[in-house]
């Protein structure tokens, strides 16, 4: 690469960094004060683009219209943030953290469909910035003037935010609440108002980040999850709660991505590396490296010890075998009375139930939240497909070996992940899942890339719907039973001891990390089983099996059913899969309907469905006693 093109790529990277910084700064601010990991933050960015597009259309493509549109769009998105905070989040600040996460997932779904309804599914290409559309000559290369302006906006906004936080009483309140919000309340500060104002500022920053991209990036419906993944990475690499860290990380990642594009294919003796393919994964590699070297990010500090001792989850109770027998009998009898459609739905439910139970296994009893569990589901699926089609193994062998591939990756990824905890751990799992996704997505010769693989059918003796149904039910059922059994073995008790009281567990000689690692591998293997069964039931597999949305689906299933109960994930998986099927048939806006249902559940049953129903049942019993 020549110096001028290197320099231009550097500037391109800095341009991308500005918006990335704005989104991440808002996310970081909101997390600091409210302790909510706001998955809907990417949706707010997306709204910023759409609203700016419409406002600029309405106000005219003059410099006045453009800049008024951008600023108004940021304010509108800020107000949307306030609405979200007041209508939903304010009601659940006392609910468990994971439930708040579920609520923000639901908001993602609702916002996506609202955008679909208002703006349609076509990408919307915004106007160039009036007055700044010309290009500037730099070292013989041309650079849009607007991009140079964007480069300046990042540091300027950091300066303004710094002044706001360091030089105003509001800023002092925000910093105080980030450390100890209960004490701030006891000093007479109305937390509700403070949280609302923080949400306004945070949402506005996301909206501004989106609106500023309108001349550079078409507004589209996939931005929400891709941007939230980027923003998570930046926040975590920079260190949660550190705004300078966020800027530093945004620059690092923006520039690294731009460089990958600029470098292109490099020929080394013996092989060649196509760096432009690394664009999708480079930020996750950076995050992985940073988190392993500096577990709290570049400029982050270890999180303050949570003050209100988080209430320890109630002990798990094993399901009664009578109930289990009834279910087993029903499932075995199902093919006798049902049609193919119903059997196919049951197979899906079985796969997702095992997927959800394996996720619950590490999230609940082992206390490690994963945002990237789809990696192992997808690896199981792809391993089955690759072993069958590329290695030419018989189907039975591919089917049996595939989960071990998932387990092997879980062994590798898990080694890094168990070194972290809390949000940082969750982010690292997301990073590994994204790396997996991008490999699957781009390795055309092995995985057929974005087209996915087809013709992954079971062997002849299993190819009947009923035969495969029994195989699926038995495999998934055994997987679930195995994981549940493990939870009531000494291994399972050790995991819970490590979760509830890591220090004491260490003191009595338990290698907490080692046990967590093993749990991670077990869960990965079982998710692999689910993926393998799923792939052979569909006959095809696409990269979406390892995507973020597959991971979040799993989280929704677990959280919907309730993380504190054993059977919750199964109920959640059943409900989720069935509802998605039914709703998708009825309406184009099934996501919104689904999101609203989740929100209703979150507000009404803050312990999850099974937990909430149990509580209701308990009260009913008490009244009748």
């Amino acid at each position, binding site marked *: 690469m020549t110096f001028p093109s290197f320099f231009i790529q550097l500037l391109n990277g800095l341009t991308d960094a500005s918006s990335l910084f704005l989104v991440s700064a808002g996310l970081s601010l909101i997390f600091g004060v409210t302790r909510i990991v706001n998955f809907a933050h990417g949706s707010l960015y997306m709204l910023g683009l759409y609203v700016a597009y419409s406002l600029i259309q309405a106000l005219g493509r003059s410099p006045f219209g453009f800049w008024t549109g951008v600023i108004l769009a940021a304010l509108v998105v800020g107000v949307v943030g306030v609405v979200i905070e007041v209508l939903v989040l304010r009601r659940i600040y006392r609910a468990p953290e994971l439930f708040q996460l579920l609520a923000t997932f639901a908001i993602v779904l609702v916002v996506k469909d609202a955008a679909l309804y208002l703006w349609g599914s076509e990408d919307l290409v915004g106007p160039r910035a009036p007055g700044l559309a010309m290009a500037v000559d730099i070292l013989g290369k041309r650079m849009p003037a607007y991009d140079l302006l964007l480069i300046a906006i990042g540091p300027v906004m950091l300066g303004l935010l710094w002044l706001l936080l360091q030089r105003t009483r509001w800023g*002092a*309140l925000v910093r*105080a609440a980030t*450390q100890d919000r*209960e*004490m701030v*309340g006891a*000093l*007479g*500060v109305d937390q509700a108002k403070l949280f609302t104002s923080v949400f306004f500022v945070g949402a506005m920053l996301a909206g501004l980040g989106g609106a500023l991209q309108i001349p550079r990036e078409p507004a589209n419906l996939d931005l929400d999850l891709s941007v939230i993944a980027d923003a998570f990475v930046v926040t975590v690499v920079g260190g949660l709660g550190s705004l300078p860290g966020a800027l530093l990380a945004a620059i690092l990642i923006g520039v690294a991505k731009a460089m990958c594009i600029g470098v292109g294919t490099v020929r080394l003796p013996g092989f060649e590396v196509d760096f432009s393919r690394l664009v999708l994964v480079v930020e996750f590699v950076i995050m992985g490296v940073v988190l392993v070297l500096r577990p709290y990010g570049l400029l982050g500090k270890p999180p303050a010890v949570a003050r209100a001792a988080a209430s320890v989850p109630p002990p798990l109770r094993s399901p009664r075998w009578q109930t289990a027998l009834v279910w087993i009998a029903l499932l075995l009898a199902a093919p006798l009375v049902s049609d193919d459609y119903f059997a196919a739905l049951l197979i899906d439910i079985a796969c997702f139930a095992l997927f959800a139970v394996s996720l619950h296994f590490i999230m609940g009893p082992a206390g490690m939240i994963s945002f990237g569990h789809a990696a192992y589901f997808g690896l199981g699926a792809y391993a089955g497909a690759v072993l069958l089609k590329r290695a030419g193994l018989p189907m039975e062998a591919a089917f049996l070996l595939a989960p071990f591939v998932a387990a092997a990756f879980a062994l590798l990824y898990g080694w890094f992940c168990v070194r972290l905890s809390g949000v940082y751990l969750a982010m690292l799992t997301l990073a590994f899942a994204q790396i997996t996704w991008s490999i699957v997505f781009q390795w055309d010769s092995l995985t057929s890339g974005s087209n996915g693989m087809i013709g992954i059918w079971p062997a002849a003796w299993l190819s009947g719907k009923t035969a495969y149904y029994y195989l699926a039910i038995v495999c998934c059922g055994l997987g679930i039973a195995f994981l549940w059994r493990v939870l009531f073995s000494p291994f399972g008790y050790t995991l819970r001891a490590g979760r509830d009281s890591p220090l004491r567990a260490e003191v009595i000689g338990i290698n907490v990390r080692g046990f967590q690692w093993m749990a991670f591998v077990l869960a990965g293997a079982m998710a692999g089983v689910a993926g393998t069964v799923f792939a052979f039931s569909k006959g095809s597999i696409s990269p979406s099996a390892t995507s973020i949305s597959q991971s979040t689906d799993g989280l929704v299933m677990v959280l919907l059913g309730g993380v504190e109960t054993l059977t919750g994930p199964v109920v959640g998986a059943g409900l989720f899969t069935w509802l998605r099927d039914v709703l998708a048939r009825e309406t184009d806006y099934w996501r919104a309907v689904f999101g609203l249902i989740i929100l209703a559940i979150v507000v009404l049953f803050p312990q999850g469905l099974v937990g909430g129903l149990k509580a209701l049942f308990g009260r009913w019993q008490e009244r009748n006693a």
Partner: protein
Amino acid sequence: MLAVKDIHAYYGRAHILQGVSLEAKGGEVVALLGRNGAGKSTAMKTIMGLVPPARGEVSFGGRRIDRLPPYRIARLGLGYVPEERRIFTDLTVLENLSVGRQPARAGAPTWTEDRLFALFPNLGRMRDRLGGRMSGGEQQMLTIARTLMGNPRCVMLDEPSEGLAPIIVEQMARSIHALKGEGLSVLLSEQNLHFCQVVADRVYIIEKGQIRFGGTMAELAADAALREQYLSV
């Protein structure tokens, strides 16, 4: 001023307060004495609304406060100084004080930064120091000053002398006298009988979540058996 009637409170299933009643009148310094784990801190947190009472009544200035959120209680003029101090370590002394600031209130002394620095001269010499870079005694002064910025009519001090050097304990006693001189009511929890004798007008003894004695300091001083039973270690 502050009247607590038969409050009960739980942590999970543990029944911590089992019917605590006490009272602090205007301008009075009242001590809540008891051993570690007797329920002193929980009583204060319950009064402040930080732990929801399961039963019982708390009224302040003639108004029921037992269902109000903490910030509303603070805004009625009841100040709370927690045992662990809970200084905002990333904020400077002045910023810590600004978080506590509330409008002036009729019937209560109005505090400014300068008046507080006169009361706690050490703080005045470290206005821009971060809360996390202060000694325990300085933090104790700061946490009281921070609560006073809310111009309370009554302050609750949870173990103000705990873990402080003897010379700082003396300063603390003088400060409490000064607060009383300003007309504030003070409810303080203590394990240290001697400290209470220096500062308090009246005293309650709490043991296993119940009030076992209430009376003047002189009555407690006269009753060696009572002290032996509830206070000796």
